[in-house]
């Protein structure tokens, strides 16, 4: 540079030289610029490739845990339930406790050797404990070594899945050590013979493929190394251009520079595309093994492994379900190569090549036992956690799943729907369902079912099926009324005579009741208990649609709600999950708490990364919330959900609401006890009639679940401003005036007398 400056003034007279040196200068500059561009391009590529690779981290996925079972004196727990929980958490029954993770039990006593485990708020130490039981309760916990009383202990939680938090797909993940030897051998012999020698690209391989292609007169070999194929899969571009090929080569070199052969191969085994299940791509051999054979990868025989390896070249072209002959030929070609390379003997080859494909007809797979719940965990992770946190290897994710409740829910769904299919004359599998169960006081999701078949999670109805909610909307309308405590109380007179509403489009709307009758004057409590439509619409119109919509918002509904009278009968499309949020607010006494699945995330060493607080939002006036809860207990005591009192007499009182939509397309039930809320939907994916009302369909499932779970009865705590007064029993028309019943009121506004009808 300095030189240049010096020479510049001298150049003036020497024009010839000037031209030449200028050209040279330009050339140098051009080269420097191009070099810089190329360099920064390479740096960028390097950044991309590392980001992608680090983000996926095939070696150690995040471990997802259910909520830990807490044991303490006073907890209602049968001995066999505790043993079940111990088994869920992989405790082993032994005679003598010698190491953590063991237990034994005799009458009213369980001895237990707990495991070390890290929680967000501290570590649980491994120790030997004695748990004494009596009258269905834990009565005492003592430490076996010093005989001291232990107040509370957490069992190490059940591992419910391994996931890559940044990855959308549900995969069966394989660590390098778990890769079957035959798979490595087959992959290398058919796809990349010099994998362990080359640096990411393989000039020898390219030459060999050109030669082979020339010999064959067509393209028979690709010449891409496994590393290049991996990159192709990671960046998902399928176009075949030279620039892409060049990129691929540069990136392959970089990948090989940064990572070991083992981690690249592990990535390959988990990442390569091997098929399609509807909208979902099947990536990786672990997932593919489940998808095609319903078996874990390490149980596949050599023929089955060869079939999967054969799919690498073209998962759709060689799809064994659609093109079995092609798949068979391809598989046998792989087998033959394995034989040629002396990995299998001639006899083995002959035997394997003679077997049928062995592919299961229907894909039936999931990497986890609870796919719908894990789906929600994934969505919450993405919503709430910093991407950088999630790149950490081997995260521990502590969730709110209650394994025994989830199991109870799944089993009930299966049992009830099989029964309902038959009863209603559907072919098996026609009816579908979704269920969300939460602890209403902290919003923790305890169980989630998104499909009647637990192993499938192609469509998570609990989150993604948005259906009209029918009468489940009604509590919001009555809540809006009860907010105006000077105007409305639980015995207010509503009008259920015929109603004709003129609408904006000039047409008129005549809402009708489910029984196609009108009921004249009805007390407010009976109107909701029996789910009368006309009186509800009239009430809603008097309150104003905008006020009803505001109440729905306060309850936690965020979806679009059209400002139309028909919303008063529930023509609002919501997912079961969103309905659950709405009822959570009611069931908790007016406190809206966003539903959550994650309590905390720890790094691989048990160091806390982030905790998910108990987060409270809207607070509806406690009196209003209380009265609304009361109304919902009347739905169960005297209304459309009365069957519960007969079927679950020992669990009363409970609160709930049934919902049914036009032509019996959707059957809904939302119900809660003291600390457990569950919302169930039943219907059909094609939106045809399910021939079920809220109480004959969804409530049936709810009932079956609760029979197993035995929720605590709802004991309403009335706020200061509420008091109970005796009035004529207005539950049913015939009984009016004869009996006396206590009803709750806001104490400033207790009516002096009531008309009974």
């Amino acid at each position, binding site marked *: 540079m300095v030189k240049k400056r010096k020479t510049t003034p001298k150049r003036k007279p020497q024009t010839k030289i000037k031209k030449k040196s200028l050209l040279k200068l330009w050339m140098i500059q051009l080269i420097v610029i191009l070099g810089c561009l190329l360099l920064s391009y390479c740096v960028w590529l390097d950044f991309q490739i590392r980001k992608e690779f680090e983000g996926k981290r095939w070696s150690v996925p995040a471990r997802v845990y259910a909520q830990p079972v*807490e044991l*303490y*004196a*006073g*907890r*209602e727990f049968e001995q066999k339930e505790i043993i079940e929980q111990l088994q869920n958490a992989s405790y082993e029954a032994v005679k003598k406790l010698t190491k953590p993770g063991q237990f034994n039990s005799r009458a009213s006593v369980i001895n237990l050797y707990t495991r070390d485990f890290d929680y967000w*708020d*501290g570590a649980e130490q491994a120790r030997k404990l004695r748990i004494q039981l009596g009258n269905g*309760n834990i009565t005492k916990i003592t430490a076996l070594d010093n005989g001291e009383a232990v*107040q*509370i202990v957490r069992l190490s939680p059940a591992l419910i899945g391994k996931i890559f938090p940044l990855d959308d797909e549900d995969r069966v993940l394989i660590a390098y050590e778990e890769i079957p030897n035959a798979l490595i051998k087959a992959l290398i012999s058919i796809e990349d013979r010099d994998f362990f020698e080359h640096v990411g690209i393989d000039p020898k391989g390219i030459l060999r493929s050109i030669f082979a292609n020339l010999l064959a007169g067509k393209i028979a070999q690709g010449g891409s190394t496994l590393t290049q194929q991996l990159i192709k899969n990671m960046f998902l571009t399928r176009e075949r251009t030279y620039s892409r090929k060049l990129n691929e080569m540069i990136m392959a070199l970089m990948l090989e520079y940064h990572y070991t052969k083992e981690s690249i191969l592990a990535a390959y085994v988990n990442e390569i595309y091997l098929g399609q299940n509807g909208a979902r791509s099947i990536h990786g051999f672990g997932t593919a093994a489940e998808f095609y054979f319903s078996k874990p990868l390490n149980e596949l025989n050599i023929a089955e492994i060869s079939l999967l390896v054969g799919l690498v070249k073209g998962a759709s072209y060689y799809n064994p379900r659609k093109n079995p002959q092609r798949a068979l030929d391809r598989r046998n070609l792989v087998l033959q190569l394995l034989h040629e390379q002396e990995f299998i003997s001639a006899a083995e080859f002959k035997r394997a090549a003679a077997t049928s494909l062995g592919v299961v007809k229907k894909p039936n797979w999931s990497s986890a036992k609870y796919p719908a719940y894990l789906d929600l965990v994934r969505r919450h992770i993405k919503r709430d956690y910093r991407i950088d946190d999630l790149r950490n290897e081997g995260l521990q994710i502590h969730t709110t799943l209650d394994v025994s409740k989830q199991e109870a829910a799944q089993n009930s769904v299966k049992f009830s729907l099989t029964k309902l299919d038959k009863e209603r004359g559907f072919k098996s599998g026609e009816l579908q369902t979704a269920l969300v169960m939460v*602890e209403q*006081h*902290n919003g923790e999701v305890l169980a989630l079912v998104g499909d009647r078949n637990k192993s499938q999670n192609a469509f998570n109805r609990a989150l993604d099926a948005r259906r009209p909610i029918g009468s489940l909307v009604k509590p919001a309308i009555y809540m809006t009324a009860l907010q105006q405590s000077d105007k409305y109380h639980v015995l207010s007179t509503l009008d259920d005579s015929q109603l004709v509403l003129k609408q904006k489009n000039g047409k008129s709307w005549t809402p009708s009741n489910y029984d196609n009758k009108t009921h*004249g*004057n009805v007390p407010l409590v009976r109107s909701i208990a029996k789910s009368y439509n006309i009186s509800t619409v009239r009430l809603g119109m008097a309150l104003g649609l905008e006020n009803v919509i505001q109440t729905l918002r306060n309850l936690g509904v965020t979806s679009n709600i059209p400002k139309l009278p028909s919303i008063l009968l529930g023509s609002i499309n919501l997912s079961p999950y969103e309905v659950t949020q709405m009822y959570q607010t009611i069931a908790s*006494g007016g406190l809206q708490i966003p539903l959550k699945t994650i309590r*905390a995330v720890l790094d691989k060493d048990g160091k806390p990364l982030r*905790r998910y*607080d*108990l987060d*409270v*939002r809207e*607070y509806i006036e*406690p009196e209003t919330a209380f009265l609304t809860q009361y109304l919902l207990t009347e739905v169960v*005591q*005297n209304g459309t959900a009365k069957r519960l*009192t007969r079927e679950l007499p*020992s669990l*009363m*009182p409970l609160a709930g609401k049934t919902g049914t939509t036009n032509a019996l397309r959707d059957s809904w039930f939302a119900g809660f006890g003291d*600390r457990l809320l569950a919302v169930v939907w039943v219907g059909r994916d094609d939106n045809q009639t399910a021939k079920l009302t809220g109480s004959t369909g969804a409530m049936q499932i709810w009932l079956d679940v609760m029979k197993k779970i035995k929720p*605590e*009865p709802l*004991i*309403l*705590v*009335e*706020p*200061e401003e509420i*008091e*109970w*007064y*005796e*009035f004529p029993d207005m*539950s049913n028309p015939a009984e*009016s*005036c004869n009996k*006396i*019943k*206590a009803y709750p009121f806001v*104490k400033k506004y*207790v*009516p*002096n*007398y*009531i*008309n*009974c*009808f």
Partner: protein
Amino acid sequence: MNMQRLSLILITLFLSACAEQATKSVELIPVEERNALIENRPSLTENPEAATQQKNKAADKQKEPVIVALLNEADQFSKQGQSEKAAATIERALRIEPKNALLWHRLAVVRMQQQQWQQAIVMARKSNALAANNKQLKSDNWALIAAAYDNLGDEKKANEARNKQSGQA
């Protein structure tokens, strides 16, 4: 049409003849009696709730030591300045007794320490709704709510809360 209307009026008249005074006069019922009323409330003659409530009370008594232990643990965390761990511990206790008014109050206190005023207010109100006749706790909650509104610069609401607090005393 006219006939219909006439019969409707007649029916209404007949029904209002049935109208009864509230059987108990509208005077304040003492708290103890009120509780007795609740137990009888949802109709069924067998009165299953009384048994349930009794059982619940016995169970709550048994749970007292664990709640106390967790609250002590939370205090320790608070003293060490680890308010988030204190909150986690109180939440753990709340999973055992979600309708324990004291626990909600204590969580509100932690949120105050963390300057999460809005959260503290809502939790203190939740505590109040559950506090039944615990006047001291209610008074503490209103004081906390007043302080939180002060911090939010909402003088009107702070004063309202202070009035309620003196109402409890």
